[in-house]
């Protein structure tokens, strides 16, 4: 019988890979249904019914239909609290609050500049879109300032929200993977001692290695 959990989208999408990493950490079976974005499948009516903004991923768990990768991850952690990595979203309210805090920092402060750089440096060349040097410089500076805050934090704490790997760290994996492994700007991370140590640790997790493998073979 097919798994009730379905993820719609290409593995190369940062938001899709965020959800895949979470599902694998939580040991939740799922079906990945590819969406061919170069053919505009994400703008077709059937897809828009699931994701009105025409973006990937879309997600279904039996009769529940969701979108927005961070909301999907939180839902997976709440519904499957007893499966897989039980610490991923904290096992008590204080731990969960700290994880939410850093998940918000990722979404509000880390994602905009890192996402812009991923687009400019990794995707634009593939899509034959000219790169915008001004935007690259601006976002590199912004990202540098955010990583300075992370450098200090990760000198005090093994992971962002505390001593355990959490959804907050996981949420950083997709953009950072592209920047470190797919562009020449990886030193933004690797030149910062604590950030470099943290990146090395979180990217070596089995769940992330599986996602990277899926991206390579997808």
């Amino acid at each position: 019988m097919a798994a009730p959990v379905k993820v719609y989208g290409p593995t190369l999408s940062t938001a899709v890979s965020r959800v895949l990493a979470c599902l694998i950490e939580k040991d939740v079976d799922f079906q990945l249904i590819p969406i061919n974005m170069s053919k505009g499948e994400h703008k077709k009516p059937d897809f828009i019914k699931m994701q009105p903004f025409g973006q990937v991923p879309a997600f279904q768990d039996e009769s529940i239909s969701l979108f927005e990768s961070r909301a999907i991850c939180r839902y997976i952690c709440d519904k499957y609290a007893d499966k897989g990595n039980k610490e991923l979203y904290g096992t008590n309210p204080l731990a969960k609050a700290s994880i939410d805090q850093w998940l918000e920092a990722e979404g509000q402060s880390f994602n905009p500049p890192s996402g812009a750089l991923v687009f400019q440096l990794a995707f634009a060349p593939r899509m034959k879109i000219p790169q915008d040097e001004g935007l690259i410089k601006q976002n590199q500076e912004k990202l540098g300032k955010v990583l300075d805050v992370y450098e200090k934090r990760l000198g005090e704490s093994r992971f962002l929200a505390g001593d355990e790997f959490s959804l907050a760290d996981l949420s950083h994996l997709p953009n950072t993977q592209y920047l470190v492994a797919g562009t020449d700007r990886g030193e933004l991370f690797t030149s910062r001692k604590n950030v470099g140590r943290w990146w090395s640790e979180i990217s070596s997790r089995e769940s992330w290695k599986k996602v990277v493998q899926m991206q390579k073979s997808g």
Partner: protein
Amino acid sequence: MALKLHGSAMSTSTSLVIICLHEKEVDFELVPVDLFAGEQKQPHFLAKNPFGQVPVLEDGDLTLFESRAISAYIAEKFKETGYDLLRHQNLQEAALVKVWMEVESQQFHPAIAPIVYQFYVVPLKGVSPDQAIIDDNLEKLGKVLDIYEARLSSTKYLAGDFYSLADLHHLPYTCYLMKTTAASVINERPHVKAWWEDISCRPVSKKAAEGMTFGEKCTLKIKALLL
């Protein structure tokens, strides 16, 4: 021991938390942070939030930043009192609240924030608002609100037929937008307009709006500082 919220009632992010606290009927102390004097960038504040932004919540030993994380924490901790903002007893409804909270965070906020910044913050530096930035972001916001319009023609509120934290998160920035000529982006869309009128007329929303005076009383004070 009462909760302490460090911030400013006129700040959108602080206001978001204030509204949540009031909806949950939770007592708290607002500890003012002087944004115009740059207090949020001083070492004693950076020790609470290394990003140097308001608000920060202190609840006993817990110190929390990021307004959306704070509001989610409050709504969860006090789920048995006040208004049910998270729909915690229904897995499907709770999941949809999370979805539309992320929509505010990832789609709505990035488009509305630069518009409000141009209208309210830029003039304090003695510069005219950049119309190109306003127009560009109004176009983006318009596209997002077209999707809201479709959604709100089938449900009364964003996550369903119930007011939730997802709707609440839209209050502060939209409150400021509605005082500018950009209000048309809301008013032109009948379901969005009706939704806005409903959520902004809640007693708690109206009370918080009274504190959202950025650009009014302060303008003269700031201009004096800048001279």
